[in-house]
């Protein structure tokens, strides 16, 4: 048998406007756990989706057990023994464990009269469980199961194909607690002993030492290197590998002397989401908040904007305490959130640019009895389109027909039209292509000239590049609070990924 159960060479994948992968090499020994690491946008997801047959690669080759294979569809991937367990696997909660394992694969026959034999399914599930002894009651409905049990069901489902030898786990621990993670690791070790090769994607670096044999770091769609987990490796080293040297020139200059305080937040908390957050933002300043998805920054944004009003602590604008129990209160007090999920939270796609820009401040465009002053609206929104350089044939164009970057600008325009004092941008450049990103950063800087801006993002480069002052959130707490010129990119990343502890190989988490 060949040394590698899987070998990927020179994988290239291009999307319109984005070079997602440019020559990635990767290999996997049989029976090893190989961690795949990289910051958001490095190409991990794309690589995995090529392996799973979701995307087609443009160039490169894939060998399985030394033989070249072609993967054109998820079915091909399955036939070659590759199974993927995505984050948050979807299941039918009222069905039992074994029913979920075989969902849609109950029988090979096509006839509608071929009824599902539960007894037989249960037997097949039992055989599967003998081969991979998970600690699991398969007769229990999934709704009664804990997260580790659900993950185990998803893994069993992936392994239910007789030929399954390669298992991809995509951030399996992102929603698990510490003790649950340890339980899951026991299961992964058991799989390893039974010869399953595992590609393990994670943002939690300390897990690499706990579970992985080797790791590969991707950066900008290229392989940085493949490393064995040994005593020379620590999290600081890995973050350096993930980041590299560069910080490209897409970011505007920083400022040094902010003005008076606009927003001040004291001991803000929502139980179970984030605790004891305090900070302030000054006129002229961009405050960056960095964290991983799930670190609580999303809830923090929504809380400041009144979408999640049940909170502890105090919010003040211009030194005066304000009550914010709805988004309307927030807008009235001069706070505007440019939400992260633009398509669902930001824009009314089926309506025009003008409709969207004026939506959060309809008072300004309406007069007697609430009648819209069409002339004023047209003039104001056209001016906004010019100011933000939104590429649209006119303000009557449907927002759905604009590009991602221009849609984002429409949402920003909506915020500008509320004449807010404080702008919170959550994940401002997701779905925006590289060229348009820079425009948005310069816009934020311009905006911060006489307003205050908070940028909240899981994109480390973005936070580091654009902000004057950085907070890092980890598991609902602020673990680092520094001026950008007094910190390093890898310090920020390390705090975001591990909460600040430098974990070495062999250390427990």
């Amino acid at each position, binding site marked *: 048998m060949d040394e590698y159960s899987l070998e990927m060479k020179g994988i290239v994948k291009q999307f319109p406007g*984005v070079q997602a992968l440019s020559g990635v090499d990767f290999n996997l020994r049989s029976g090893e756990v190989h961690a795949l690491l990289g910051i958001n946008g490095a190409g991990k997801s794309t690589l995995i989706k090529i392996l799973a047959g979701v995307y087609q690669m443009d160039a490169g080759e894939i060998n399985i057990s030394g033989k070249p294979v072609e993967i054109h569809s998820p079915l091909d991937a399955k036939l070659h023994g590759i199974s993927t367990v995505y984050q948050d696997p979807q299941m039918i909660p009222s069905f039992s464990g074994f029913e979920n394992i075989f969902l849609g694969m109950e029988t090979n026959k096509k006839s509608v009269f071929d009824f599902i034999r539960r007894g037989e399914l249960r037997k097949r599930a039992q055989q599967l469980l003998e081969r991979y002894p998970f600690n699991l009651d398969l007769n229990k409905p999934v709704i009664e199961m804990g997260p580790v049990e659900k993950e185990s069901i998803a893994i069993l489902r992936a392994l239910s194909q007789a030929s399954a030898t390669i298992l991809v786990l995509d951030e399996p621990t992102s929603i698990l607690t510490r003790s649950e993670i340890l339980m899951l690791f026991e299961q992964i070790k058991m799989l390893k002993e039974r010869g399953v090769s595992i590609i393990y994607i994670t943002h939690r670096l300390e897990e690499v030492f706990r579970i992985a044999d080797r790791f590969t770091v991707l950066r900008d769609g290229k392989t940085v290197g493949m490393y064995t987990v040994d005593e020379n490796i620590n999290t600081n080293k890995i973050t350096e590998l993930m980041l590299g040297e560069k910080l490209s020139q897409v970011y505007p200059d920083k400022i040094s002397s902010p003005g008076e305080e606009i927003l001040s937040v004291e001991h803000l908390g929502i139980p179970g989401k984030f605790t004891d957050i305090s900070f302030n933002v000054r006129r002229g300043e961009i405050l960056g908040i960095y964290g991983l998805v799930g670190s609580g920054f999303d809830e923090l944004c929504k809380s400041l904007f009144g979408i999640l009003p049940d909170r502890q602590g105090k919010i003040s604008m211009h030194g005066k305490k304000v009550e914010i129990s*709805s988004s*309307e209160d927030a807008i009235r007090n001069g706070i505007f*959130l440019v939400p992260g999920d633009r398509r669902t939270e930001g824009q009314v796609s089926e309506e025009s640019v003008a409709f969207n820009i004026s*939506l*959060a401040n309809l008072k300004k465009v309406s007069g007697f009895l609430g009648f819209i002053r069409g002339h004023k609206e047209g003039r104001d929104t056209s001016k906004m389109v010019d100011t933000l350089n939104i590429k649209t044939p006119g303000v009557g164009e449907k927002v759905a*027909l604009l590009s991602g970057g221009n849609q984002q600008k429409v949402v920003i325009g909506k915020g500008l039209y509320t004449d807010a004092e404080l702008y919170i941008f959550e994940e401002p450049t997701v779905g925006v292509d590289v060229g348009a990103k820079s425009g948005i950063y310069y816009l934020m800087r311009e905006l911060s000239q006489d307003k205050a801006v908070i940028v909240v993002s899981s994109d480390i480069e973005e936070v580091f590049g654009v902000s004057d002052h950085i907070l890092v959130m980890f598991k609902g707490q602020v673990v680092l609070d520094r001026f950008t010129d007094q910190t390093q990119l890898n310090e920020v990343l390390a705090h975001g990924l591990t909460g600040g502890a430098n974990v070495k190989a062999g250390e427990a988490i």
Partner: protein
Amino acid sequence: MSKRAKQFNRDWISVIIFLCILAGIMAIFSFLAPQFMTANNLLRALKHLSVTSLAALGLTFVVVVGHSDMSFAFVSCFAGMSMSFFIGIVGWPPVPSIIMGLFGGMIFGFLNGIAVGRFKLPDMIVTIGIGSFAWGLAYLYNKGNYIYTNFLTSGIIEFSDGRLLGIPFPVIYLFSFYIVAYLILHRTKYGRGFYSVGSNRIAAVFSGIKIERYIIAAFVISCTLASFTNMVMTAAQGNGNVKGGLVLLLPAWAAVFIGISVFKKPTVIGTFLGAFLLSIMQNGFTLLNAPFYIMDLIVGLTLILSIVISRIEVRKKVKDVSPIDTFQAAA
């Protein structure tokens, strides 16, 4: 051709097709039944139109905010019986009786709105439940029997038969309500609120729109307008009938969906055109002495056809999403 010009054509082509169909149907009827194109008959058609179209107008608000109301027809029965009760059994004059009836309808609309808007209950089921409850209550007034005492003397008939400058009152109601509704939905900031709640509720929340109030308002408008419609029907028939309002349900839905298939979204003018088409057909088939059930057939078919057409439009829109966005969304 520029993208914009293409868009313009796509928007207007369905309106032109619709108007051609309407003209075709009218031509066929006037060919088959010579009395169809007379002024008197057209006025009669308009009077009929006022009935379905007002209920449909109320329903339009609910559909605009992205919900369904199955209760308005049943609620209108309750409202109609309440009016009849106050006129026929208590002996009140028409105006306060009508106000009581409308108030009753309003209450049920409010209940729908609270259930759907605040408690997020499924709209179909809740409105069927509340509608059936209202209908049950309507039976209590006179054990389900007709109420017609006092009707001829109280003056309620005038609300249907009266004329102003030769125009029947129902036609006046029709145009006044449509103009007001048009102004609200398409010319004021409240209209922006209604539409934003319907097309992207979450974005509306993030824009500081009070979505709950808009949903409640839509249900209140729907039930109140249906109740008003039932008042006109009760006045026209000269008696209060527990089942009188039931005929509103299907045509109102059909009118709204015809409107959506023409304009790709619920609009006041679309609903008007839908109701107009249905009334023309109703009128034409009556002139041709077609059996009464033919209309149920036609309305049902039209409803299904218009839903199919509006769905095709929705599918087209999904394809318009650009590949880069799809990739980003998947990644």
